């Protein structure tokens, strides 16, 4: 179970679930209300998710943001299933920034991340739909003077079955809102689902193929100006001086804004702003990190392997087992610094006025963004409006709102709205980085070659200490160590955590796959090394260790079957396998690579099998697994940032490449049918990619890789 899932289970069990109804603007608003002990007195803490206007489309308010993962589709499906409306009768709208109403039930804040959206909203959204439906039926029955039980709801209407009379929801809104709110309306059993689990086209995509979808960068408030920004290239450095004259000479440039750590050029259009910025000769105080190099950081991370560790997971007696069983493998796995490179570079549009502040942005943390704008401007938080836009990719980058803070600071010096646009280079050089990771894995084998002891020491930052402190316990970041213990049956297991932070001023954050992506290379590389030492086939070895984990074993078998495991992959080729149990789901992945004698690596095929419980939309699930795999491939092959003289060296797709069409392998995704509770899918595909590739390269070449990215390793035959 993933760290995010653990917290979720705990917090849900402490809460009671209520339903409330209000009339707002002539629409019936129905909302599930989560009331915890601390909130019970606050009867106004509504979370409205359904608006039924007298005529026209029903609005479903989506508390999570759409960043490609299909959440508009997913949450709409849950609401519509119980509300008894068709997907062409609804329109999904973004929830405003309002954590009191739209906090994720498991995370306790208005956050979209951690692959928990469906898990957290699976019940509340269906309950909201069911309650609304029940009230609409009661209203119609009252209108007709019949018993509610003789009526049914279908496609946005209530129908009296015997007489065939029907009334549209819109005509029942006023009366329904006056009725008592029923408690505990029964939810449909899975066998009666009309929408959940059925193929249906995504509702957010038509606008994305004709240019009409609005991302953050497409916000166009009237009279908006455009700003290009240069942030101090060294982490923690400051602005020394800048002569603004060269920028002001550029046609269309209106102003140069100086901040303590950045310079922005404001103009009539982004082209002029970028030209004006390029004309400036900015002097920076490079600060305490001014001489930093990647080599220093790498050595420091290596040294932390011998630092003070805290025990994050302990089972059996690892010390005793190691003393008895000297035979085994010990290896160190090293992961680089990674950027997110969302397709849409960081940007934010802000209008600061004496009496209020509007912010147009695509963010995974709307509530935090609103609070930050309020703090900076001194305005009451209710005077700050976040206009949440589609996100041109999130991947964890937009879980941090540093870009909002920067844009508000610029906007405070500009009359009227200003759109602050980061160049791709600024986006790469001022990311919330996936910071360096080190893993030392020590697996001891019994006389039969099977593991008797598993020790995994993880070196990494404690992101949760600042991001979600409830996941930072006793000095341990529960996310960073997530899945480090492996899904395997080993009598004695210990996971140790050594906290190792980036230099001050360098923002580190969440990256797709979060903790499991950090741990999968060592876990799945380590078990592969153990299998090799034992002389047992890697799939068979894993199978023997999954006696207590039937869902994991089933997806392993499914992936191995479809990948043709055991059959000759052909000359110069090899297959590698990796498993993942995280986010409440299970994934098995088999990669096939072709390594030519000259060292050229081609990833030919990736077969994935997943069990994520009950599926809300089968094609969105496939999309997400494919997406996670491609994201993982880019990182495994190329992802690595370096630092010289205190600044990130790489800046764009030429020196920080990502996977392109011509390199994309065949990807087969196989889904295990399941009636279990839904698991996460948005990050499920990413963690296993790197270890599956590393293991495939070993199978093809005999070279055991333990560092990423793969492109930095010479694979030429010796």
């Amino acid at each position, binding site marked *: 179970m993933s760290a995010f899932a653990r917290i979720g289970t705990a917090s849900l069990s402490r809460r009671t679930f209520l339903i409330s109804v209000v009339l707002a603007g002539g629409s019936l608003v129905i909302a599930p209300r989560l009331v915890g002990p601390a909130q019970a007195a606050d009867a106004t803490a509504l979370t409205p998710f359904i608006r039924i206007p007298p005529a026209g489309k029903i609005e479903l308010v989506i508390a999570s943001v759409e960043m*490609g993962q*299909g959440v508009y589709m997913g949450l709409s499906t849950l609401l519509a299933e119980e509300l008894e409306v068709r997907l062409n009768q609804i329109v999904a709208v973004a929830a405003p920034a309002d954590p009191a109403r739209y906090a994720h039930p498991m995370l306790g804040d208005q956050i979209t991340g951690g692959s928990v959206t469906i898990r957290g909203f699976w019940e509340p959204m269906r309950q909201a739909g069911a309650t609304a439906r029940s009230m609409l039926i009661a209203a119609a029955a009252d209108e007709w003077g019949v018993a509610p039980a003789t009526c049914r709801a279908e496609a946005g209407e209530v129908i009296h079955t015997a007489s065939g009379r029907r009334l549209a929801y819109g005509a029942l809104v006023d009366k329904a809102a006056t009725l008592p709110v029923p408690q505990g309306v029964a939810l449909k059993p899975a066998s009666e689902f009309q929408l959940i689990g059925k*193929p249906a*086209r*995504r509702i*957010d*995509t*038509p*606008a*994305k*193929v*004709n*240019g*009409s979808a*609005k*991302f953050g*960068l497409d916000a*166009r408030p009237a009279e908006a100006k*455009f700003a290009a920004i240069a942030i101090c290239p060294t982490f923690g450095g400051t602005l020394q001086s800048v002569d603004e004259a060269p920028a002001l000479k*550029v*046609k*269309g440039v209106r102003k140069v804004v100086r901040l303590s750590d950045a310079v922005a050029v404001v103009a*009539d*259009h*982004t*082209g*002029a702003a*970028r*030209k004006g910025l390029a004309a400036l000769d900015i002097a920076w105080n490079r600060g305490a990190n001014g001489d930093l190099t990647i080599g220093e950081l790498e050595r420091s991370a290596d040294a932390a392997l011998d630092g003070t560790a805290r025990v994050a997971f302990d089972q059996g007696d690892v010390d005793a087992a190691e003393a008895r069983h000297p035979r085994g493998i010990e290896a160190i796995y090293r992961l680089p610094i990674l950027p997110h490179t*969302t*397709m*849409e*570079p960081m940007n934010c549009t802000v209008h600061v006025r004496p009496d209020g502040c509007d912010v147009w942005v695509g963010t995974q943390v709307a509530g935090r963004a609103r609070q930050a704008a309020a703090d900076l401007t001194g305005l009451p938080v209710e005077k700050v409006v976040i206009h949440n836009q*589609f*996100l*041109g*990719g*999130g*991947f964890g980058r937009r879980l941090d709102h540093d870009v909002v803070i920067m844009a508000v600071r610029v906007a405070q010096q500009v009359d009227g709205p200003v759109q602050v646009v980061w160049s*791709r280079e600024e986006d790469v050089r001022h990311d919330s980085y996936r910071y360096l990771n080190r893993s030392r894995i020590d697996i001891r084998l019994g006389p039969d070659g099977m593991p008797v002891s598993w020790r995994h020491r993880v070196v990494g930052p404690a992101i949760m200490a600042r991001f979600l402190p409830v996941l930072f316990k006793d000095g341990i970041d529960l996310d960073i160590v997530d899945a480090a213990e492996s899904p395997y049956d080993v009598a004695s297991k210990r996971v140790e955590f050594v906290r190792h932070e980036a230099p001050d001023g360098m923002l580190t954050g969440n990256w797709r796959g979060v903790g499991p992506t950090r741990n999968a290379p060592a876990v799945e590389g380590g078990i592969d090394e153990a299998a090799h030492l034992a002389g047992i086939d890697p799939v068979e070895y894993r199978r023997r260790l999954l006696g207590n984990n039937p869902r994991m074993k089933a997806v392993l078998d499914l992936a191995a079957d479809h990948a043709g495991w055991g059959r000759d992959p052909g000359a110069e080729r090899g297959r590698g396998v990796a498993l993942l149990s995280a986010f409440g789901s299970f994934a098995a992945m088999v990669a096939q690579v072709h390594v030519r004698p000259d060292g050229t690596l081609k990833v030919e095929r990736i077969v994935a099998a997943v069990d994520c419980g009950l599926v809300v939309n*089968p*094609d969105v699930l*496939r*999309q997400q697994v*494919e*997406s996670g*795999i*491609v*994201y993982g491939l*880019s990182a495994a092959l190329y992802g690595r940032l370096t630092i010289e003289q205190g600044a990130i060296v790489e800046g764009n*797709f030429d020196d920080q490449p*990502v*996977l*392109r*069409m*011509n390199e*994309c392998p065949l*990807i087969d995704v*196989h*889904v295990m049918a399941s009636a279990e509770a839904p698991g996460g899918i948005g990050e499920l595909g990413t963690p296993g990619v790197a270890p599956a590739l590393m293991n495939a390269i070993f199978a093809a070449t005999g070279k055991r890789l333990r560092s990423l990215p793969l492109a930095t390793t010479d694979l030429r035959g010796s």
Partner: protein
Amino acid sequence: MAYSLNVNGKNYSVDVDADTPLLWALRDVIGLTGTKFGCGVAQCGACTVHLDGQAVRSCVTTVESAGTAAIMTIEAVGSTQVGNRVQQAWLEQEVVQCGYCQSGQIMSATALLNENPSPSDDDIDAVMSGNICRCGTYPRIRAAIRQIAAGPGFHRRRLR
């Protein structure tokens, strides 16, 4: 000086420097925001538009060099037969995720299919590898282009 640009069949006057990238004239001056900014250096293809039918990267195409060419953007490509088929195939194959790169993908694919109605996989690679997608929609983009190349009898890949 002001430049006259012919965009999607209409003339616009844009008063910007000659070296202003067409991208910003389209997005910030004319207000057609469907064309996206991704890298600024012709590495990612998000800003792809057609200039007299040829796919170009508008982030490195200056307003001056666009001259009197007919510029077509994502907002109008659906009015062409091939562009419309590409958009429909994109929806049928459920290509789109975050969607940010898809304006550029669709413009590149439309130019490819205009030039070569039945591209091979190598042809697809040669053209489409200039367009980056961070959501990883490449397999579905390929499937959508193949679907169009195969003609109207081709059905959507079966949902497994």
